[in-house]
């Protein structure tokens, strides 16, 4: 409950549904001593219990859920740990083969462009078995793609978070048991993430059982027998059958989830641990206490505020993973004041973001460039000449004064009044700021920002009247704060839904994605960004496969966005994971926290 609701950060944004992964500038520390030992168990605490185990992109999109299912469920590719990503990476360098045997690219010939369509060939690993003993084959790949799109189009009875991208798939061929060819209707740049990551591939034999009934995997009960693991009959969201190094054993809701070693795992070595228990502790303070008292071995996703108490724990290693996204303030470009670029720029200059980073975030992260489109795993497309606006209240004051906003002691209590004439017509310069309610860090930021802006004569309405995360991020059709545009400034974090893929923000910036009655409420462009340069860049980035072309597109997008200022990026978001030093072999990954559980072991 400790506020960190950031994981509700709209993973559904770009639509790359089931994936995740590594950052560029790794702050990861991996201490290894001695050789791995078999045996032992590890307890990991998570403050957010998933509602369903069908997490990865099917019905739910929480980062914690990805972590929980990570050791059991696999995909064609998996996201590399931060430390394993080479310098100056290509997009494909963020991935490594898992159920496939190599990463398909244009260069290695597995991606073939034919005019306006393309084919991606996946070569599959031999000798892999599902936890219930069935062999893994190309049928599983075909059925998974069928499930997402081909079979149902957009009428899937199972609530699917996003079908974007999947709707570009025209079909899957299986020339043999270990080859699957995915046919794309268009040239689709972000192809690599489809079928990758945890829950990337679902078991064909179970999908068939559900399809024989209603087709809704959240409703149909199946009987499941995992030797050594879960045995029983229930709907898919109460268990999971994967191919990973650990098998699902039990889920006691409200308390814990148990994963046990898979002795038949396909990897080069058997997993070292016997069990991994995920304990659900809603309060990260309790997690900190339990970490001190050795009740848990690892805590996922600590608040930045706990960095300093964590640093005092001798027996604990703290890993800080920079995310591929930023904490930022969206500006509503249709707001009477904010539609004036001078005001937006003054706000950008008037907030001491470095001070927020240095104090509230313990200097563990950085202030991003003016467009934060290519942070973290997006480093490959970072604009080399990106602008970094500095904190300069004097310049902000001058800017506002020159734009006609005069300090008005009588009418506005020392704040500024706007110039005469439409649309603000001399009114006092006052804007509202909202964020997710109950999030301690954000509420601190809110107070600090309001106090900074007061110094340049911009009044922020107080009290803030923050909506809960569910309300803030709610859909247009349901009156969500962001998408019905009923905000002036809104502070939250947005990050990629898949590693290294800025296409995730297509729906956030492109003008056709401004939700309105006219477009049936589609898209997540909450700021009313409507700019031909941005539209062209995102469309170009989507339909290109050559990395150089894609990079140029996103550099153009960054330049345009930095010019428009639809958002104020505050800092690069970060993930904090802390674990007992006796746990060895952990490698961090900012999307996917329990990525390499087979390599974990307990030293004496």
């Amino acid at each position: 409950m400790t506020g960190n609701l950031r994981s509700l950060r709209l993973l559904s944004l770009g639509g790359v549904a089931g994936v995740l992964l590594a950052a560029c500038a790794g702050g990861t520390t991996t201490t290894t001593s001695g050789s791995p030992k078999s045996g032992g168990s590890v307890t990991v605490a998570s403050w957010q219990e998933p509602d369903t185990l069908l997490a990865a992109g099917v019905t739910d999109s929480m980062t914690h859920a990805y972590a929980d299912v990570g050791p059991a469920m696999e995909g064609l590719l998996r996201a590399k740990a931060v430390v394993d990503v080479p310098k100056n990476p290509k997009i494909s360098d963020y991935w490594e083969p898992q159920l496939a045997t190599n990463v398909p690219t244009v260069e290695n010939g597995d991606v073939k462009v034919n005019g306006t369509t393309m084919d991606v060939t996946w070569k599959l690993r031999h000798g892999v078995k599902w936890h219930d003993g069935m062999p893994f084959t190309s049928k599983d790949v075909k059925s998974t793609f069928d499930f997402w799109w081909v079979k149902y189009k957009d009428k899937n009875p199972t609530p699917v978070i996003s079908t974007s991208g999947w709707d570009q798939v025209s079909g899957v061929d299986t020339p043999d048991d270990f080859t699957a060819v995915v046919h794309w209707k268009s040239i689709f740049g972000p192809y690599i993430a489809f079928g990758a990551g945890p829950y990337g591939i679902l078991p064909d034999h179970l999908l068939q059982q559900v399809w024989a009934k209603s087709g809704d995997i959240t409703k149909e009960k199946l009987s499941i027998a995992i030797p050594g693991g879960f045995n029983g009959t229930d709907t898919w969201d109460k268990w999971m059958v994967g191919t990973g190094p650990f098998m699902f054993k039990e889920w006691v809701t409200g308390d814990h989830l148990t994963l046990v070693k898979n002795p038949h795992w396909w990897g080069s070595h058997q997993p070292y641990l016997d069990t991994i228990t995920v304990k659900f502790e809603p309060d990260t303070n309790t997690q900190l206490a339990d970490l001190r008292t050795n009740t848990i071995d690892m805590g996922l996703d600590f608040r930045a505020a706990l960095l300093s108490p964590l640093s005092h724990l001798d027996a604990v290693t703290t890993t800080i993973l920079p995310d591929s996204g930023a904490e930022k303030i969206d500006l509503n470009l249709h707001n009477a004041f904010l539609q004036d670029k001078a005001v937006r720029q003054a706000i950008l200059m008037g907030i001491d973001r470095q001070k927020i980073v240095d104090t509230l975030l313990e200097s563990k992260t950085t202030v991003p460039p003016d467009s934060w489109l290519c942070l973290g795993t997006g480093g490959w497309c970072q604009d080399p000449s990106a602008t970094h606006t500095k904190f300069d209240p004097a310049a902000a004051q001058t800017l506002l004064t020159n734009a006609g906003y005069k300090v008005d002691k009588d009418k506005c209590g020392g704040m500024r009044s706007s110039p005469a004439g439409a649309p603000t017509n001399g009114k006092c310069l006052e804007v509202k700021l909202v964020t997710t309610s109950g999030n301690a860090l954000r509420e601190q930021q809110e107070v600090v920002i309001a106090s900074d802006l007061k110094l340049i004569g911009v009044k922020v309405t107080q009290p803030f009247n923050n909506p809960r995360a569910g309300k803030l991020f709610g859909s247009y059709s349901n009156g969500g704060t962001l998408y019905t545009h009923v905000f002036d400034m809104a502070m939250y974090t947005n990050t990629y839904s898949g590693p290294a893929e800025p296409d995730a923000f297509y729906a956030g910036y492109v003008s056709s994605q401004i939700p309105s009655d006219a477009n049936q409420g589609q898209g997540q462009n909450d700021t009313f960004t409507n700019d031909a340069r941005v539209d062209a860049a995102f469309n170009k980035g989507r339909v290109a496969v050559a990395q150089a072309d894609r990079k140029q597109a996103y550099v153009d997008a960054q330049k345009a966005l930095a010019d428009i200022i639809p958002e104020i990026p505050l800092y690069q978001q970060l993930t904090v994971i802390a674990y007992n030093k006796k746990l060895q072999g952990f490698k961090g990954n900012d999307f996917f926290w329990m990525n390499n559980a087979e390599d974990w072991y307990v030293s004496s």
Partner: protein
Amino acid sequence: MTKYILRRVLQAIPVLFVISLILFTITQVLPDKPWALLLHNPRLTLADRARILHYYGFDQPFWLQYFLYMKHLLSLPPDLGTSYFSHQTTLSLIRERLPNTLVLMGSFYIVTLALSIPIGIIAAVKQYSKFDNLVTTGAFVGISLPNFWFGLMLIILFAVIPYEHLGFKIFPTGGMWDPGHVGDPLNLLWHLVLPAIVLSVQSIAQYSRFMRSSMLDVLNQDYIRTARAKGLAEGRVVLRHALRNSLLPLITLMGIEIPQLFVGALITEQVFAWPGMGRLFWDAAQKTDIQVLVGVLVLLSVLVVFGNLIADVAYGWADPRIQYR
């Protein structure tokens, strides 16, 4: 007796009916509608919205929706709605959590009665003594204590500070079991101590005051005077003759207290990460999962009504002076 019980059950029905009407009306009147979660996905279009609302019948008039709601509620097995988040029925969610809350409440009754009865007796026998005054003051502090804060202080005192200075924790910070110890009663007991204290502390104060005055009433009655006059030892008079009758009002109090007990359990479960009904409710509140919220409230209300009924019946069973007609 059977007739009486039957009549009480029949009396409970209108109350439950009114409760359902109140709760249903609240969900309709408040800003966030019960279908909010169904429209959670930011990708839903307006056409989707209309389709979903129609599918679930939310486009129908109020009275018809209430009628359908009651029809589901009164069917067998009762249908308390389905969480649009976890896709589980409210009933199955409750079934997972209710036993844990009952464990907590059971420990509450044991701790409270075991402490408050002796305290109340001593305070009554030694009326106006220092002990009595202490109990009086304690009762006031007890009912004024914010229990979430008290729980927090206990965690610091019994888990954090001992571990920092002694290297071990006297009691755990929260949870119901340690991993690998699920089902171990000793492990459960160890986890239960602090939550049970927090849940009981206010009631120990209240129950012992209640016990004290009830004991004083009985001690002033003629048959006790007679017993004393006959030369019986005071201890025997109190324990043998007065105790039974002075316990009777406690039964009623226990019945009336049930709603408060659920409230206490909600907060205790939150402080100590106890996976019970209160946590289920709180989690649902964080997500605005109104189906679960209302379902839990309906069930709790039923439990309260029947808890009161049981208390009444038990009262009559314990007190032969009461006759049921």
